[in-house]
Structure formats: C-alpha cells, structure tokens
C-alpha cells in the first residue's frame, strides 16, 4: 500500500487556494472589525473605522476614517483621524506579533461632533476597562484627605470631651517609647551582668598592688618571669572584658540614638494631634495651606485625576520586568483556557509602535487653535522585552497667530526594569484655563487665560505630582443661592456668614495662583494645595474671628496636653534613665579597666630585660 496519495495534491492545492482567497477577500474587513471591536471594548464607547487596507508583502497597513467617541459625550469624538499609515515589520508578524516600525498620522482632530451617537448600551459601557479605570481613580481621589471648611463651632461652646486618647498619635508613640525603654533596660541589665568586668578589675588590681614596689633583683630571674607572665595573662583578660564592654556599649549607644530620634518625633506627632483635635471639635485652621486645600482642593484634584488614571492604566496593562504572564484565553464555544505569554529580552514584544509622528491643527480662533507636532516612541505592551522606555512629545509648530504662546508636553514611561519610572511634564503658557467651582465658599472662579504647568514623577511606589496655574485676569461669580442669602444678619460661623466672608476676601483678587501637590505612596498619597486664595481667606478669617479662634485653640491644646503630657514626660524620663543607667555604668567600667591596664603595662615595662627570654620588652 502506498503511503502517499499523490492525486490528492490537487484537492490540497485547491483547499489552500481557497484559504488564501478567503484571506485576500476578508483580511481587510477582519482588521477593521478587530480594531472596532477591540477599541470599543477598551474605550467604553464606539470606535469606528471607515476602512483598513493591508498590503502584506509591502508591510503596509492604512487605516482611514478612525473615529473614537468621547465616552462622556457620545455625540462628540475624543479624536478622529483621516488616515494612519503603518509600516509593519514582517518578521514580527510571522511571530504573531505586531511591530509598527513607523506610524504616520494625518488629519488628527480633537473633539469634533459626531453624526450619530457613539454610546454603548449601559452595561457594556460600565464594564469597559476605560470606565472601570475612571471609576477606580475617582474612588481613589475621593479617599484623599481634603479637610472640609466648617466654621460651625464658632460662637458656640466647644465640646472637647470627644477628643479620645486612643486617637492621639503622640500618646501612642510615647507609650511605645516607654515600652521600648523598659524592655531595652531589662535586656541590657542582663547583658551588663553577663559582661560584668568587676572580677577582672579586682584580680588585675590585686596583681598590680602585689607587684608594686617589688624589685627585679629581689624577685630573681624566675620570679620576674612568673610576674611578667601573670601580668600578660591579666592584660589578655582585660582586653577580652573591654571588647565585650565595647560591643555592648556600641549596641546601647545605637539603640539610645534610635530612641532619641523617636522622642524628637513626639513634638511633630503632638502638632498633628492638635490639628486632629481642632478638626474634631471643628475649630477652623487659619493656616493658608489648610484653607486653600479646603477651598480649591477638590477642583484641583479633578484636574489631576486624568493623569493619574493613565498611570493606573499603565500599572494594570504594562507589568514591569520579563516574566511569563497569564491571560484569559480567547472567547470561543470551547473553554477559553489560559493563554501564557513567554516574553524574551530583545525580541519583538506582542505589540510595538517604534516611532509615530503626526502633525495636526486645532482650527478656529480658540486659545488652543494652531498647528502642533507630536511624536511617540516605544509604545509597547512589553517594555522590558523592547528594552526602551516610551517617550512622547507634543509641541506647538510654526508661528503663533492666536492661542497659546507655548505648549510643550513631554514624558517618559519607563517600565523596562522591575521598578517603574514615569515622568510627565506639561508646560502651557497662554492657554485657556478652567473655571473652578469653589463649593466650600459658594463661589466660582473663571481663570480665563494664563500659565498651566502639570508634572508627574513616579519611581516605584512613590509619586509626586504638581498642578500649577497662574492667571492675572480672573473673574469671580457667586452661586445663586449664596448671593441670595442675607449675610449681614447671618450668625457667626453659619454657612451664609462664611460665604459672605470668603466672597469679601476673594472677589477683589484678580491675580490667582494655585499649586496642588500629590506626594507619597501611590496607594495612599498626601495631597495639599497652596494658593493666594487661602492666604486671603486666612487673613479675613483672622480679622473676623481672631479672639474666638484663639480661645478655641487654647482649649484644644490644653486638652491634648493633659492627655499626652504625662506619657511624653514618662518617655523622656525613661530616655534620661537609660543615659544615666546602663550607659554610665558601661562608661565607668571601661575607664576602670583602662586605669588598671595602664598600671599593669607600666609594671611590665619595669620588669623588661632585653635579650632574656620571658622578660623581653
């Protein structure tokens, strides 16, 4: 029987011809459908593509008429592109990877109107990664500590009973310090007893006394040798005792230094406790920073949330390092299973856009109108495999007719190593600035045009972010309900009174500067705001309620001091006790050892006879 059925070659060739024909006929449509389906799933709103054209052997892919809907405004596009031309690496395609060596983008426009709504059914929109990321970041932003501006306690008797000792940081730290001091003292007492040099000192002193005044001639040669041997033996014992004491002393000195630094931090903790107690009994802070954070913090944070959302996406989509990864398998009638990814350094990552450049024009006479140039390098899903960071740059191109004098946005997203390093800088001069709603004061400030700087830097788990705006032509307006409230008759501390006070302080400000900063660990960063708005409100509040606030501040401090003071004193006493106890005992013992060692060495020198074994110097 023949192994091969040669006449089947014709059906086989026909079969493969059908496969190739199907590829030729349908590949463009499949690419179009794939981009639309994938983009829509990620964006949470429709992504549409007019056509896709792949010329495989030329390594050329052209996408025309791309529209990405703004998920928040389904009748508008986030952006639209007339044409994208990608120059593909064929070798990467053979490895089932996508490498766009160069990408040229033509006719990019932002925010255009759509003919039809790009909204998805509610459920699909809500489960889209972009929507989930927005929700996660908004949830994260709401957790940031922004103090509320509440002056309700002014003009009322303060109830300071609510200040609980359990909530005071300095008390907890002082208690811990006392505990540490006690346990260290117990431990050191044991070690000191074990290393007690008294027997060595006594024995050495006895030998020194016995040999004092003796003459080498009376001792004779053998007596002198015995005496010298005894001295050497004692000196060895002294050295051993001193080494033990030195080691113990180093240990004690180090641990006392650590306790001292903890004791020094008690003052800072107590200051934080004053702040906590003040907020608890609703005594307003007059610190301009606190006031600025309360007043413009929420609005400033909203301006920083999009950048943080991008970082959040990166964290989830681009894991650092080269490790096998697991993903859910493709959806199909059969079980999806798990798809393993086995990246390898310096090979093609699954998706790579090596270099992309585009010029675009923002039309009209708005402040952002003008020509721009944007460049992107190293966009990839596996930066560690590619080995280079993602960089991006957007600049104004050509002469400035209208709009901003300077727009410069640049950044680096480096996930090539185990520790992520990202930095973004945006420097925008003469741009249209947002209108900020200062809900805590029932007012709104239109910043109009000015300078806006945004920067983010992130190394591993720690992040610093800054959003800065400056405008010298702001306009103020009041919320309708605040303007209608009768301020003159409003009781001190009431909402109407506060609105009127803040309005009086800020409405004459034409020059406004706001600087918001995020810092600390990415999971739970700190947030604060500086602004001349805070300074103006602080001065107005100080003039209006200085006496009231002074009385409240004194009461709060006294309450905290009464709860914390004894424990802090006890902690400091323990520290002083350690200085005077074990440390002093160690110092005394060492000086006695030094003294007796000097005596014995002096006796040894007096017994020395050159050339005689056992008595050589």
């Amino acid at each position, binding site marked *: *029987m*023949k*192994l*091969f*059925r040669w006449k*089947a*070659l014709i*059906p*086989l060739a026909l*079969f*493969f011809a059908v*496969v190739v024909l199907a590829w030729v006929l349908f590949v463009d449509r499949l690419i179009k459908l794939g981009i639309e389906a994938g983009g829509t799933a990620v964006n949470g709103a429709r992504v549409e593509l007019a056509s896709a054209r792949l010329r495989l052997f030329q390594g050329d892919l052209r996408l025309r008429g791309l529209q990405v809907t703004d998920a928040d405004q389904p009748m508008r596009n986030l952006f639209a592109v007339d044409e994208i031309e990608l120059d593909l690496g064929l*070798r990467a395609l*053979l*490895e*089932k*990877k996508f490498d766009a060596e160069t990408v040229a983008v033509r006719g990019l426009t932002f925010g255009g109107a759509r003919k039809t709504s790009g909204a998805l059914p509610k459920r699909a929109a809500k489960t889209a990664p972009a929507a989930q990321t927005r929700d996660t970041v908004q949830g994260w932003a709401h957790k940031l500590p922004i103090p509320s501006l509440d002056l309700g306690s002014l003009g009322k008797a303060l109830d300071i009973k609510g200040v609980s000792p359990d909530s005071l940081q300095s008390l907890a730290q002082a208690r811990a310090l006392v505990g540490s001091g006690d346990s260290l003292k117990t431990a050191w007492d044991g070690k000191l007893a074990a290393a007690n040099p008294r027997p060595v000192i006594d024995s050495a002193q006895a030998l020194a006394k016995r040999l004092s005044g003796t003459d080498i001639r009376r001792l004779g040669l053998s007596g002198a040798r015995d005496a010298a041997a005894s001295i050497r033996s004692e000196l060895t014992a002294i050295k051993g005792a001193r080494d033990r004491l030195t080691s113990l002393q180093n240990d004690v000195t180090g641990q006392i230094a650590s306790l001292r630094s903890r004791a020094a931090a008690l003052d800072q903790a107590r200051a934080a406790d004053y702040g906590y107690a003040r907020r608890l009994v609703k005594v307003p802070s007059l610190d301009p920073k606190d006031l600025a954070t309360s007043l413009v913090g929420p609005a400033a944070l909203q301006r920083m949330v999009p950048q943080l959302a991008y970082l959040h996406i990166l964290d989830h989509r681009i894991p650092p390092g080269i490790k*096998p990864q697991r993903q859910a*398998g*493709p959806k*199909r009638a*059969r*079980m*999806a*299973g*798990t*798809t*393993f*990814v*086995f*990246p*390898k350094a310096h*090979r*093609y990552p699954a998706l790579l856009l090596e270099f992309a450049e585009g010029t675009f024009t923002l039309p009209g006479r708005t402040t952002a109108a003008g020509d721009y140039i944007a460049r992107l390098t190293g966009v990839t899903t596996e930066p560690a495999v590619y080995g280079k960071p993602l960089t991006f740059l957007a600049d104004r191109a050509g002469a400035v007719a209208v709009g901003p004098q300077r727009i410069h946005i640049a950044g680096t997203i480096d996930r090539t190593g185990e520790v992520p390093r990202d930095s973004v800088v945006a420097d925008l001069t003469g741009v249209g600035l947002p209108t900020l709603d200062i809900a805590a004061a029932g007012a709104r400030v239109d910043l109009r045009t000015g300078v806006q700087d945004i920067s983010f830097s992130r190394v591993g788990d720690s992040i610093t972010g800054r959003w800065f705006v400056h405008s010298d032509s702001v306009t103020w307006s009041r919320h309708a309900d605040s303007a209608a409230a009768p301020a003159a008759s409003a009781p001190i501390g009431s909402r109407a009174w506060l609105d009127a006070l803040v309005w009086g302080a800020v409405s004459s400000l034409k020059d406004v500067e706001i600087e918001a900063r995020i810092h600390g660990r990415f999971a739970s960063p700190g947030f604060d705001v500086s602004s001349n708005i805070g300074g103006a409100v602080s001065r107005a509040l100080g003039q209006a309620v200085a006496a009231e606030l002074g009385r409240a501040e004194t009461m709060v401090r006294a309450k905290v001091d009464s709860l914390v003071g004894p424990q802090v004193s006890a902690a400091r006493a323990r520290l002083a006790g350690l200085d005077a106890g074990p440390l002093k005992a160690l110092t005394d013992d060492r000086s006695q050892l030094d003294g007796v060692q000097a005596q014995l060495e002096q006796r040894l020198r007096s017994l020395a006879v050159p050339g005689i074994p056992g008595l050589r110097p």
Partner: protein
Amino acid sequence: MLLLKFIQQLIGTLNSDGTPRQVAAGIALGAVFGLTPLMNLHNLVLFGLALILNLSMAGVFLGWAVFVPVGFALDPLFDAIGKALLGADVLRPLWTSLYNMPVVPFTNFNNSVVLGSFVFWLVTLVPFYFLWKWAVMRYREKVYERLKKMRFFQLITASKLYTTYRSFTRFVP
C-alpha cells in the same frame, strides 16, 4: 436529521472500501479536529496531511465528528494538562523559544486548552489507532452481518443521503 446523517456516516465509513488500517488511521488523525480547538495552524497542517496520506478520509471525518463532543466534555482536563505543562519551570526555556519563533505561535500552543488537548491527542494517537483498527475489524466480521438484516439499517442505507455519500466515498478510500 443531524443524527441520521451521523449514523449514515458511521455506517458508511465502517463499510467503506478502505482497509481497517486506513479507516483506523483516519479516525485517529481526525480525532485531533474534534479534540483540539479548530481554528489553529496545527489543524490546517494536519488536514493537509490527512489529504496527502493514504488513509480513509471518511475515517477522518468520522473521527472529527465523534470527538467533537468528547473535546467539549474533556476541556477541563485539557486545561489542567496545558496549565501544568505551560507552568512547568523546567519547560519554560522550550516554551520561550517556541513563543519567539516564526510561525509556531499561530498554533496557539501557549493556550492551556490547545496544548492540553493536542498533547492528549498525541499521547492517545497510537493506542486509538490500534483500538479503532480492532473495532473496525470486529465490526466487519461480526456486527455488520447482523446489522445488515435489520430493517432500520436497511432503511438508513437505502436513503438518498447514503447513496450520495457512497458515490462520494468511492473516489476517496
């Protein structure tokens, strides 16, 4: 209708002109299309091989049809086998090389169900061949003679579909 077609195919294949070895080889090879998820490069290659090799195409289709439900049923087992193999540290260099090699990734070997089902098929290929060879021989010797006399069997084999099928399989052993 589908069931009828399947029964006709089963009967037709087992009685086709192919030798029991050809039918058994066809079924054993065709099993891969039922056991592993279909749209993968290895299935295209194996289908080409099935056309070229001198084995029963009817057997190939029968193996495919029989093992489709088996594949669905055994997916959790395939998933476990695939995960164990793909997650094994000792095999990681092999998978990494294959993953970064031209063409091979189109087999989707890095999916647990694909790899698990393919390995399962590969391991059972030879035993299945002998099992099916024995079964076809036994069928032709013992069962066919008895079945032939049954009215149901006569109805089936007399149907138009069966006739059409037979006219097709005359050209392909």
